[in-house]
């Protein structure tokens, strides 16, 4: 277009002809292929921005989220990519820090020109990053568990299609806890958004199931010593509900053991308290007989999860959920399946939406994911079948309760998907793009 403006009176005949020729040439090309953009987009890789907690308090999760994502992308590329385009994972460390998280979303969008951003886990980072993704109109697929997506706190560009949220998890746990373990519960949780979801929704769910919360003990996620919190646990506690995150989780569980010496109340924990920690670490013997929630069982459960073994092999985990190359390098197995499943869901959704790397395609991509509902269990979705709610941008799925027996987590109970349902709190589809 600019070249047309350059043709003004006084210009030489030769240059005028050249300019006209150039315009004609462009027109001819664009009549066969609509624009250079598409021409580039069909051959260039699809760039998936990966916001990863390589450092900071989420580093152990980040390491395994990255390994899982790389394995999934390798699989997708070996199967022909997405609509013939190879997938490129562009990873950026956010230091598990909300402020840095927003900057990473921006960097992935503006500097790297990614097609979508995905992979964030820690809830405070998601809450810090999502508004920026919305402003940049960048589809943001989180793998976070927090209730912030389904609560309506975020925006239309943020979706959580492959990992369930805390509210649905605890709603499904409460009947088991009150029915099998005890009615009087004391809760210990990290003092930030994720922990507050546990505090609010589990206590509500317990009360609905005839239980009672005696005490709620909040611990800062950067805390390094825990014994001083335990005297606050009331003596008539029947069940101690614990969920902890951060680099000091092993210390937390050990000191819990030192405090009670394996006596005390029945323990029900979220595996977050022990993600990436070897169950056979010295000092954890007291956990034998206690129960854990797991998003996906760390230890192989035979044929109970039919697609588990193939996934386990692909991400490089042995039957104990540790790295095949180093048995001391334990994975974050209960969470990281979310990365694997999200990437395969993106492949499906991008194909359905005929994704072209432009803004209209991004809108189409979100609308396509919103239209999804049943996600059957498969090699792409090894954790189990799920039902996605397009209005709340949140997926629902089975939850697993495992029991520690001889230092191994064995499946004790699996909930149904229906156990995890709760009424919608938001309809993101009514928001404009």
């Amino acid at each position, binding site marked *: 277009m600019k070249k047309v403006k350059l043709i003004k009176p006084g210009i030489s005949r030769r240059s005028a002809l050249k300019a006209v020729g150039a315009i004609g040439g462009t027109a001819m090309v664009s009549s066969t292929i609509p624009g250079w953009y598409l021409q580039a987009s069909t051959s260039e890789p699809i760039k998936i921005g990966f916001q990863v907690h390589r450092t900071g308090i989420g*580093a152990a999760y980040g*390491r395994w989220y990255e390994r899982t994502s790389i394995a999934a992308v390798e699989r997708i590329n070996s199967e022909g990519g997405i609509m013939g385009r190879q997938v490129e994972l562009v990873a950026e460390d956010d230091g598990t820090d909300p402020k840095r998280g927003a900057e990473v979303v921006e960097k992935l969008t503006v500097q790297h020109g990614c097609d979508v951003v995905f992979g964030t886990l820690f809830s405070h980072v998601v809450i810090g990053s999502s508004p920026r993704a919305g402003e940049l109109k960048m589809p943001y697929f989180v793998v976070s568990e927090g209730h912030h997506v389904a609560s309506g706190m975020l925006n239309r560009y943020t979706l959580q299609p492959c990992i369930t949220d805390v509210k649905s998890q605890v709603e499904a746990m409460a009947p088991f806890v009150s029915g099998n373990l005890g009615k009087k519960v004391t809760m210990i949780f990290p003092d930030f958004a994720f922990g507050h979801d546990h505090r609010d929704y589990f206590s509500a769910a317990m009360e609905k199931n005839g239980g009672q919360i005696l005490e709620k003990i909040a611990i*800062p996620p950067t805390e390094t*010593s825990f014994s001083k919190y335990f*005297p606050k646990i009331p003596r008539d506690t029947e069940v101690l509900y614990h969920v902890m995150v951060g680099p*000091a989780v092993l210390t937390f569980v050990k000191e819990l053991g030192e405090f009670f010496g394996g*006596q005390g109340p029945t323990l029900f924990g979220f595996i977050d308290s022990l993600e990436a920690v070897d169950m056979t670490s010295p000092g954890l013997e007291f956990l034998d007989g206690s129960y854990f929630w797991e998003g996906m069982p760390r230890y192989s459960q035979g044929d109970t999860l039919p697609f588990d073994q193939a996934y386990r092999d692909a991400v490089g985990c042995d039957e104990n959920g540790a790295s095949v190359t180093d048995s001391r390098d334990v994975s974050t197995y209960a969470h990281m399946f979310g990365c694997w499943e999200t990437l395969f869901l993106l492949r499906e959704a991008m194909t359905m939406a005929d994704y072209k790397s432009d803004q209209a395609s991004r809108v189409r991509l979100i609308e396509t994911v919103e239209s999804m509902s049943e996600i059957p269990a498969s090699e792409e979705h090894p954790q189990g079948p799920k039902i996605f709610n397009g209005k709340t941008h949140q997926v629902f799925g089975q939850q697993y309760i495992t029991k520690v027996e001889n230092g191994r987590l064995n499946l004790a109970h699996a909930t149904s998907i229906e156990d995890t349902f709760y009424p919608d709190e938001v309809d993101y589809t009514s928001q404009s793009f």
Partner: protein
Amino acid sequence: MEFGPYLIIALFEGALTSAVIALTAVGLSVVFGLMRVVNVAHGEFFMLGAVFTWFITWNLGLNPTVGFITALLLVPLAVGSLATLADRLILNRLDYDPERTIVATIGLLYLIQQSTLMSYGPDARPVEPPFNHRIALPWIELGESGWQIYWPWGFGITTYKLAVILAAIVLLWILLRLLARTKYGLLIRATQQDSEMALAFGIPVSRVYAIVFGIGGGLAALGAVLIVPIRQAHYLMGGEPLLLSFIVVIVGGLGSIPGTILAAILIGMSDGLISVFFSPTLAKIVATLLVVFVLIFRPNGLFGKNQQ
């Protein structure tokens, strides 16, 4: 109702905190007292102590006790040598100028922290304690139906934590004796009182500086070796001991070792008590407030000598 067991746990946790802060802060205090250098990288020497301990116990494949004892002997030496090297390469060349050394040690902080992140990685790694037994004492209380025994809600402590408290007491006593009764202590005290005069009397002041900076780093590392089987080695763990050491050193009086030890006990115990009875966040607030009041009413600290 449950005041008794609370109090015992609070005192015990407080004593543990005091012991570790005392060792770490004394290192900072010695360095400041002698060299007038505010070592912002002190917390990183602590962190290095923990990381090196992990390295020795994990990689040498020794049994926990042998590995730990090896670490206890080698790690403070290694970190102390690094600190001495830092003194020779950096602080000495800045002529120990107070402002420039602060900036230089901030640089050192990032250098150590980021090198650890790049080599050791971002994970928290555990070190197995050489011994660890739980001592659970029942708590007996007069209830509505006569005397009742509460167990395990009495209090549980571990032998290792007790050993850390004892070890810190012994080590501090040795340090005080060294400073007060030996020739080397005399050299250090002479340099501290008047470095020019000490030089005139033939004391190798620059060597004393290097050694003292090494001792400071080594003491931080020693605190870390003792605590790492309880907490874990992590590249960001230097922040809290640095903050607590500064609080303790300011409250106790910059450069005064007895003041530092007393302040460590004060801060550690109040941290334990306030954490257990109220909240750990309040404990940090109170400690920081204490610093403010000390700075307002006794600018040289509780035991600091008037320097003017």
